[in-house]
Structure formats: structure tokens, C-alpha cells
């Protein structure tokens, strides 16, 4: 068997198993580009055979190692509950955390702290309304869950209302940004200051307002308790909340105050979820048939950025078929290949890349398309052809080395 097992075959297997272009995670990019410091998420564990080896090392080494293993960088947050009227957590109370963050339990709210960490805590809202104020810290990892809905938080202020029996969740964001995940959507909803999100798990509907009364609250002022529970939503009764009514209220208030921003503008602001919410409100099919090029392009980009692959594919397909001669339509051809490739549908990806190259042989994505085809193609003659073509675009591209290797064979 060893005769078959040559280093060259080994090399071939590794090249097939670990692709030459191995796209790192979005989080890794974020850590480098935005944060600039490595967070250590490494977890250590003892292997089963450590003990006898430790015996050989001597007491000093053991002590040093134990200090190394046991040492923890920071303590978990601590908190105390201050009863404001002495009637228990069912009445108004405040949880004050050691980092300065606080959670006010309003009305008949009931909540518990599931766990604390050095940079945050996980709260479970069992019912009622709470006002959360988290001290800004880029490393914060605060989460609040209400039923199956989760809110990821860093420095921010917001009110959450959870009607356990009606399965209605309402979040009003006063300051900062949060991410909300619910069973209704495959991706998280990102909310910015002034927005209000209503989720009704019974009717399976969700609405996100573009801005409302909460936006008028001075962002740097901590809300008085009364204001947080009443001023921002005077008429909000748990039984009265329906997604339809909140969506109508949102659209009315947005329409009366400011002209609706274009999808392109929302996209530039990073408000992908709002773009997609509006696409759905308008109707995907209707948009595919009637949206203007610039809107369709923005919607497709928003779907791609939000990770909604199916919707992105639909919108790119519409863009491609309705505007085939425009730059955006041709770019959509390439992006359809990209989407297919990410879904491991290599045959479809190859078709799209070829189609793109026939449409725009010198287009902005032509070199990339040729490079990707070079990686996908197994036929040596075709590989040579693609390698030559790739190097015509320049000698320093991402696939140049591969192209040169192919030509050197």
C-alpha cells in the first residue's frame, strides 16, 4: 500500500480537500479590520493521558501549569436586585450590575438572570415589560431572551415587552443597536435607534417600524422610569398589540414625518433588514416584475448581505432577465454564479460564470470568473486554456500561481 501512497498523491488529495481559496468567516474579518486585537476563544481541556506525564514533570512544573490553567482573566459580573416597593419581583424592581448596566422590571414583569459573564449576562424575560440599559462596551455580550426570541445587545437602551400567553413580543430601541432573532426569520433583524419591532408568534407575523415616537427621546438621557413605560407607548396594552396595527402606525408615522429613504440609501446605511422588509411588504413577485433597476439591485444586494440566499437568487435572476444588457444585469450573472458556488452547486455556478464571460469578456468580474472556472475545471486542456486566459488579465491575481502551475505541467 505504501507504494501507492506517494507524496504527490498526498499533495493532490490535500489540494482537493482544502481549496486554494478558503474564505475566512465574517467574524474573522471583523476582528482584523475593525477590532485589531485577537480575542482568544480558545478552550483548553485535559487529554485522558495527562496524569502520568504530569508525574514526570515535578512539583514545580505542576504548580506553574496549574496556575496557567486555572488563571482567569476577569471575574463575571455581579448584580443586586433593588426592590422599589418591597413587593417582590412581580412589582417594580431594578437589577443593578457591577459594570453599571441595569434592568428595570416594569408593571408585572418577571425576569431572571440566567448567567453572568465578564462582559455581560443572559437575561430571561418570562413576561411583562423591562427597560434595559447596557453600558457601552465593544466586548459586551449581553443577551435577552423572551420565549424563542433572542436579543443580542451591546451598549444600548431599550424596552422589551413579552406577552407570554398572547405570544407577542415588542421591542422599542431607544439608543444603540441590537440584533433580534426569532423563529419567523432565518436571519437576525438588526435594529437601530428609534425603531420598534413587533413579533406575533401566533399569526407568524413581524413588523419593523422605520422610526416612531421613540426616536424623539433624547438618546443620551437615561429615561425616567415612568417615561420608559408610558411616554414612548402610551396606548400599548398587551392585548391590543397586533402586527397589523403596529405596522400601520409605523408607516403612518414614517410617512407623516420624513420621506421614505430609497433602498439604495438604506443599503448604504447597512439597513438590510429594512430593505428586505419593504421588499416583502411590496411583494417579491411584484418587485421582480415592476421595480426599477436601482431598487432591484439594492434589494438583491441586501438579500446577499443578510445571507438570504434564496431571495438573493430570485432577485438576481429578475435583475438578470429584465436588464441583461446593463452593467447591473451582467454583474447579476456573475453573482448568481457566486451564490450557486456558495451553495455547492458547482454545475450551476460554472454555467453562470461562462454566461457572464460570454456577456462581458472584459467585465469587472471577468478575471475572477476565469479564476473560479480554473479551480472548478478538471479537464486538463480546458484548464490550460483558462490558465492562459487568466494570466492575460495580469500576473498577480489570486489565481496566478495556480494558472502558472497548470501551464508548467
Amino acid at each position, binding site marked *: 500500500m505504501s507504494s*501507492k501512497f506517494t507524496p*504527490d498523491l498526498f*499533495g493532490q488529495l490535500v489540494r482537493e480537500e482544502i481549496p486554494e481559496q478558503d474564505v*475566512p*468567516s465574517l*467574524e474573522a474579518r471583523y476582528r482584523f*479590520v475593525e477590532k485589531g486585537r485577537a480575542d482568544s476563544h480558545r478552550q*483548553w481541556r*485535559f487529554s485522558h493521558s495527562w496524569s502520568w506525564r504530569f508525574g514526570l*514533570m515535578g512539583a514545580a512544573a505542576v504548580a506553574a501549569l496549574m496556575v496557567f490553567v486555572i488563571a482567569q482573566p476577569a471575574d463575571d459580573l455581579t448584580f443586586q436586585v433593588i426592590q422599589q416597593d418591597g413587593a417582590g419581583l412581580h412589582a417594580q424592581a431594578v437589577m443593578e450590575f457591577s459594570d453599571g448596566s441595569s434592568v428595570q422590571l416594569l408593571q408585572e414583569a418577571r425576569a431572571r438572570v440566567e448567567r453572568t459573564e465578564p462582559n455581560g449576562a443572559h437575561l430571561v424575560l418570562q413576561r411583562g415589560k423591562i427597560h434595559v440599559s447596557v453600558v457601552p462596551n465593544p466586548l459586551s455580550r449581553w443577551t435577552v431572551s423572551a420565549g424563542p426570541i433572542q436579543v443580542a445587545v451591546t451598549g444600548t437602551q431599550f424596552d422589551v415587552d413579552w406577552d407570554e400567553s398572547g405570544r407577542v413580543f415588542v421591542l422599542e430601541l431607544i439608543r444603540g443597536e441590537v440584533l433580534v432573532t426569532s423563529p419567523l426569520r432565518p436571519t437576525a433583524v438588526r435594529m437601530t435607534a428609534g425603531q420598534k419591532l413587533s413579533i406575533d408568534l401566533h399569526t407568524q407575523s413581524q413588523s419593523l417600524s422605520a422610526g416612531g415616537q421613540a426616536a424623539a427621546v433624547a438618546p443620551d438621557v437615561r429615561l425616567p422610569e415612568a417615561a420608559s413605560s408610558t411616554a414612548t407607548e402610551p396606548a400599548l396594552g398587551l392585548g391590543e398589540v397586533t402586527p397589523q396595527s403596529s405596522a400601520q402606525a409605523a408607516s403612518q408615522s414614517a410617512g407623516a414625518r420624513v420621506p421614505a429613504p430609497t433602498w439604495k440609501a438604506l443599503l448604504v446605511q447597512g439597513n438590510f433588514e429594512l430593505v428586505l422588509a419593504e421588499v416583502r411588504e411590496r411583494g417579491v413577485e411584484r418587485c421582480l416584475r415592476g421595480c426599477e433597476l436601482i431598487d432591484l439591485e439594492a434589494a438583491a444586494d441586501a438579500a446577499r448581505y443578510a445571507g438570504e440566499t434564496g431571495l438573493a437568487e430570485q432577485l438576481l435572476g429578475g435583475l438578470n432577465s429584465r436588464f441583461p444588457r446593463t452593467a447591473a444585469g451582467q454583474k447579476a450573472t456573475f453573482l448568481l454564479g457566486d451564490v450557486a458556488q456558495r451553495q455547492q452547486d458547482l454545475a450551476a455556478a460554472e454555467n453562470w460564470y461562462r454566461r457572464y464571460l460570454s456577456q462581458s469578456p472584459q467585465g469587472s468580474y471577468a478575471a475572477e470568473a476565469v479564476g473560479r472556472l480554473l479551480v472548478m475545471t478538471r479537464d486538463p486542456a480546458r484548464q490550460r486554456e483558462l490558465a492562459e486566459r487568466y494570466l492575460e488579465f495580469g500576473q498577480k491575481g489570486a489565481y496566478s500561481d495556480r494558472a502558472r502551475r497548470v501551464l508548467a505541467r
Partner: protein
Amino acid sequence: MVHSPADQLLVSYPMLSAIKRWGSVERDPLYSATDAELVSALSASNPRAKAILWDRYAPRTKSLLRRILGPDADVDDCLHDVFEAVFVRIGTLRDPEALRHFITSVAMRKAISEVRRKRRFRWLGLEKHDPPDPTSLESTTSARALLRAIYGVLDSFPPRVRAAFILRYVEGQGLTEIADALGTSATTTKRDIAHGLELFTTGAGQSAELSRVDLDGLLRRRRA
């Protein structure tokens, strides 16, 4: 790149707010700049340059690190360290056109030190718990098992020999290129590759897992 809600929840707000800035990076004229122009922009602390450096070289570098450290290794921390080092030391790069080689060389040093660190910890009875890399799920089970067995053999290699061996037989690089990447002389590199070859042949012959596998047949089947 498709991210699950759980991913998005973990990365939370700062990352999402960063994405809105990245959206416009691809439209930046610097995106199509040459390496020399990119190096100048990095030296001038152009904030976009860092993102472009990552987009241009991180996929290739991640692949290289995984090929050296093993298919199941979680290389994100190493990748981060490599790019931080490149960013910090970009001023020492004499030929800006050699950015790619510079990154490879930094990645090699990091990979070698990571292999050393893992060996140390294995010897001490501690090992890093790497969660499985989601991308590794693409592979077929049999090929993956085979690859694990091969990297088990590579674990016995001295770290520099392992790097030289991978650069030669996986990356297909020449002696000079490998010597440049590893910061060694051509003679030492030649010796390292020969040593690696010897260890590989012996290790593969002795490995019970590898002796059960028909690698040639597996590759043929995959191609078919």
C-alpha cells in the same frame, strides 16, 4: 458567504455596524490597486487598505495555514495573528511588489510556531480543543478520515520540515520559493524536504489506518 442566525448573534452589534462600512469597500478605487499601491496605503494608515488587504489575501493564507496545520484545525486565530503581524511590519517591506511573498513568509513562521506550540501542549498532556471547521463538512467522510491519518503522520515531523514538505508537495513550490518563505538557505530547504520525504515514507508505511486505504482508488473515484 452564508451566515446562520447563531453566527450573527455571536458577532453581535459591532460587527453588524461594521458591515455597513464594508458594503462600500468593494467600490473603493483602492480595491483594484496593485500590491505596491496597497502597501503605500497601508503605510499611510488608510483605513480601507486593511480591509482590502484581508479580502485579497486572507482566503489564500487561510488555505495555506489549514494545509499546514491540518484540515480540522481552527486557524482563525492564527490567520488573525498573521495579518496583524503583516500590518504592523508592513513598513519593513523593502519591495512593495513582494507583498504576497511577505504574507506567505509571515504565515509560515506563524504556522511553524503553532505546530511547535501544539507539540508542546501534546507533550504536556494538554491539547487545544478545536471546534470542527464548518468548511470541512464539504469533504467526504473517507477522504477526511484519510486526511486525518496523514496529518497524524505529519504530526511526527519537525515543524520546519513539515512546512517545507507541504510547500513542496501540496503547494508545488520550488526550492528557492520555499527557502524564501521559510527564511532558510536552499541547502537547508533541500535537506528538510529530503528528511520530510523519508519520514513520510516511513510513517505512511507504519500507519495502520493508511495501510487500509487505497488512496489511488479513492482519488480515481472522486475524479470520476
